[in-house]
């Protein structure tokens, strides 16, 4: 059963959002998504300084078996990307909520997001 972390919010496209008391929000993909994709071997992230829009694609995540678009769960400017995950995409599978984070955004607006309970209920994830 794929883990769902209680403190995070989630989009329908399986991205998680971590609020950090008013600063840029951290974004990654859930364990549910990482497990479904399989071993991730390539990740394409938005550039620092670019603007992402909630609900729109901003990159892609590729595993040996498939490729998935990355949807931004929030709108705003990208302030930082996780270079470690670009070099070693397996971090996403190994630690999707920690070392496998993807990018940070100075969010001006959030897309529709779910609580961990709501998200887990939609896909059988384990809280």
């Amino acid at each position: 059963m794929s883990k769902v972390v209680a403190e995070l919010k989630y989009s329908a496209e399986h991205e998680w959002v971590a609020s950090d008391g008013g600063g840029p929000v951290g974004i990654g993909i859930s364990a549910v998504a990482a497990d479904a994709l399989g071993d991730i071997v390539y990740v394409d992230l938005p550039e620092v300084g670019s603007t992402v829009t909630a609900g729109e694609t901003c990159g892609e995540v590729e595993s040996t078996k498939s490729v998935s678009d990355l949807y931004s769960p929030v709108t705003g400017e990208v302030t930082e990307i996780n270079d470690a995950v670009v070099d070693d995409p397996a971090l996403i599978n190994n630690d999707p909520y920690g070392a496998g984070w993807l990018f940070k955004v100075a969010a001006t607006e959030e897309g529709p997001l779910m609580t961990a309970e709501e998200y887990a209920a939609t896909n059988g994830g384990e809280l």
Partner: protein
Amino acid sequence: MTENYTALYEQHKKAGASFTDFGGWQMPLKYESELAEHHAVRKAAGLFDLSHMGEVWVTGPDAAAFLDFALAGKLSAIAVGKAKYSLICNADGGIIDDLITYRRPSPEEGVDQYLVVPNAGNAKVVAAALLERAARFDVVVDDASAETSLIAVQGPNAEAILLTLVPAEQHALVTELKYYAAVEVSINGQDLLLARTGYTGEDGFEIYIPNLDAPGLWEALLEVGKGHGLIPAGLAARDSLRLEAGMPLYGNELSRYVNAYAAGLGPVVSLAKESDFIGKEALAAIKAAGVGSTIGQKLVGLKGAGRRAARAHYSVLKDGSLIGEVTSGQPSPTLGYPIALAYVDVEHSEPGTIVDVDLRGKSEPFEVVPLPFYKRQK
């Protein structure tokens, strides 16, 4: 489609497999990591459940002549104990399935016996086609697919693993078994058909076993294989392994709408055999027209210059014009770059040609390369 479960379903569940539907079967896609499973097969050994494959026995005085008529290859020419890769074609030359056919020892004087192994999703169609084609031959076609399991041990350590389960006096049968040959050996105290065949590009074995006995053999292999680095491997690893080895997958590279010459399987077709066979006239015309060599399309290998992989059904372009379509593609775990199989117009099929593949709206260069992508060191 009805979901079929192999006799090893409980073993897979216990091992934490994620399942996928393949040819109407619930099969393990992966256990923990498909990449780890892939590398295990290249470096040590992997254990595969292939029980979704079909097993059709063809027995009778006319068995050899019948298979020469029903299939594209010359099956009468295989020696007892050997196997041959072949195709079963339609009258128009389209491929119904690709098959491995084993010639077994005569069960009695004047009677020949073969085991035909079709793909999972085609097993019923192939069995039906064989039955229909058998009408004027003295043969019995027996579809044993439902009762037969198939377990594969693939990888450089496969032989060492098998030897731990085969009695010492039969070790030579295993060590001397040639690629594309099969022999009856006693494994776990039971006489089973052991074939040196596979779909991974590594040395390895495939074991045919009655369903009832399959779980015991699976667990025994896992147990003795532990010390040899053996882990169970799912269909995801099977697919990446066969792609690196340049082997076609029915449904991707092969179909009723593809002929052997375009698919690079011309040598599998025996136009020279004395007997007529279904598809012969069409295939002779296709070959004479130069399909796959001077006209039409041809299956080629593509190597990506970047990190993004081409996937099945992506368009192949040259100078912006459509020249073909990818049939299989993914990042190669062993080689570290994207690889793909694609049908392209023959004029762009020479190794070294640079083509573009449309990767979801953005073209990336790929080079036509000879197959296979990966070849093991012997």
